[in-house]
């Protein structure tokens, strides 16, 4: 045990490990905030679709060789979010199909572009493509190569996300709980839906580097689902999912450093464990009541 602690202590001497922990915790905080909304509004699949779009946009950014790939990823993903919300409003099946179409399409195009770029020798060798793709999809050690600028971008984005969430907390609740009531009584629900979608996009884009685009939805959904097993009010569910998310991110990062496992999947594994733990707790609580 003490040996592990010394190893950890040694690791935390390096700034990149500290950056990783800071960024990891911030992402965990942001992603857990909107989890309940996503689950209850049946937006989970949209979150998933958007992360694939972000992957496609990232591939485009890589190919065109733009230095700051956020400039492409962010607007493209926001536009797709708006489009998905539009179609989702009409009929359910159409919305589902649109999500599948956009997300798989973006995935395929992204992969193809990355391959073409590699073959034409755009700064990368062919052998790296699969590693590249793998790391964008599942996250990778790239978390350990964060620069100070990356950290600051992440801090700024997190501040924006948390502020927006706090300021619009009551509205987000109203629109999530009963959208038609909100609309009927004169609340501009469409605007808040759009706001929610944009915040989700921001979260996805900042989290993509960290856990990879395939695993982001897990980071958003799992803490909320776990918290909903046990807690009864909207506020307590959100507070609990933030705590769960932070705990899982911290322990996931530390385990991945010690055991050398990929960061993203380690965090998600921790989330899965907590989910089953909470299922168990809710079972016990229900038994206790009877």
């Amino acid at each position, binding site marked *: 045990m003490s040996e592990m602690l010394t190893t950890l202590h040694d690791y935390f001497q390096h700034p990149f490990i500290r950056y990783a922990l800071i960024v990891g915790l911030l992402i965990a905080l942001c992603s857990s905030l909107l989890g*309940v909304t996503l689950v*209850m509004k049946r937006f989970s699949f949209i979150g998933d679709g958007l992360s694939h779009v972000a992957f496609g946009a990232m591939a485009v950014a890589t190919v065109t060789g733009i230095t700051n790939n956020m400039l492409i990823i962010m607007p493209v993903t926001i536009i797709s979010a708006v489009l998905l919300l539009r179609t989702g409003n009409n009929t359910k099946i159409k919305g589902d199909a649109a999500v599948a179409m956009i997300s798989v399409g973006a995935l395929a195009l992204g992969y193809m572009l990355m391959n073409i770029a590699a073959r034409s020798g755009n700064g990368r060798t062919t052998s790296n493509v699969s590693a590249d793709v793998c790391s964008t999809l599942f996250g990778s050690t790239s978390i350990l190569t964060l620069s100070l600028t990356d950290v600051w971008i992440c801090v700024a984005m997190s501040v924006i996300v948390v502020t927006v969430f*706090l*300021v*619009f*907390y*009551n*509205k987000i*609740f*109203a629109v*999530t*709980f*009963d959208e*038609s*009531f*909100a*609309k*009927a*009584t*004169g*609340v501009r629900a469409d605007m808040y839906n759009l706001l929610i979608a944009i915040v989700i996009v921001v979260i996805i884009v900042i989290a993509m580097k960290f856990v990879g685009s395939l695993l982001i939805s897990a980071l958003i959904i799992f803490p909320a689902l776990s*918290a*909903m097993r046990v*807690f*009864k*009010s*909207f*506020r307590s*569910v959100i507070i609990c999912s933030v705590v769960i998310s932070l705990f899982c991110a911290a322990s996931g990062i530390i385990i991945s450093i010690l055991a050398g496992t990929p960061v993203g999947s380690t965090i998600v594994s921790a989330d899965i464990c907590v989910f089953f733990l909470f299922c168990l707790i809710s079972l016990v609580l229900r038994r206790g009541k009877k």
Partner: protein
Amino acid sequence: MGTLLKCENVSLGYEGDVVTKNLNFTVSSGDYLCIVGENGSGKSTLIKALLGLKPPISGSISLCGEVGRNEIGYLPQQTMVQRDFPASVREIVLSGCMNRCGFRPFYSKEEKKLAHDMMRRLEIEPLTKRCYRELSGGQQQRVLLARALCAARKMILLDEPVTGLDPKATNEMYELIDSLNKKDKITVIMVSHDMNAAVRYASHILHVGRKQLFFGTKEDYLTSKTGQAFLAVMGGEEDE
């Protein structure tokens, strides 16, 4: 008495199929309008259209100057609300005050007090901290009504408010709505299956079928052919 709501030549339906047409009626301040008709005659669709949730196929529905969109309360049919949502009773009732906030992010003291008063009025005060999904159907209905009351400053629309309530709760619900109308001067528009209650409480009746079958005061309805025929069928059922 000023006119609050005006429907002119309104047709309603789903994706081009007209369910009901030629709706012409007005609602004045202080009215208690009951919308009756058989199942599938478009009553709920009409409510949604009045609320601006669903555009009519043709014709116009206009709110007149005196009442703004954010002064209307709405009690939806229970099935439309998510039953497994993690939310406390207080959070839900408070969300009815949302339309008073505008761009202000948080609820004011008065709004919190209003929500509290409504909960007391509906006798759900002891449930304040309870989770909505663990309540009985009648309690859930009261919570949603409290929320609607928070939102209703001038007008309230109720879609089958007594579905799933036992006879005692049903009566209480009707008395409550009646006192809202008489004491608080809130205009009521209610969709109902329950003909007895409709003719007992309402001041006006709108009877919809494939088209508008009747609109006018309750007294006229009782002497009209449509009214008598419908009462004979529906009223008989309720009496059993």
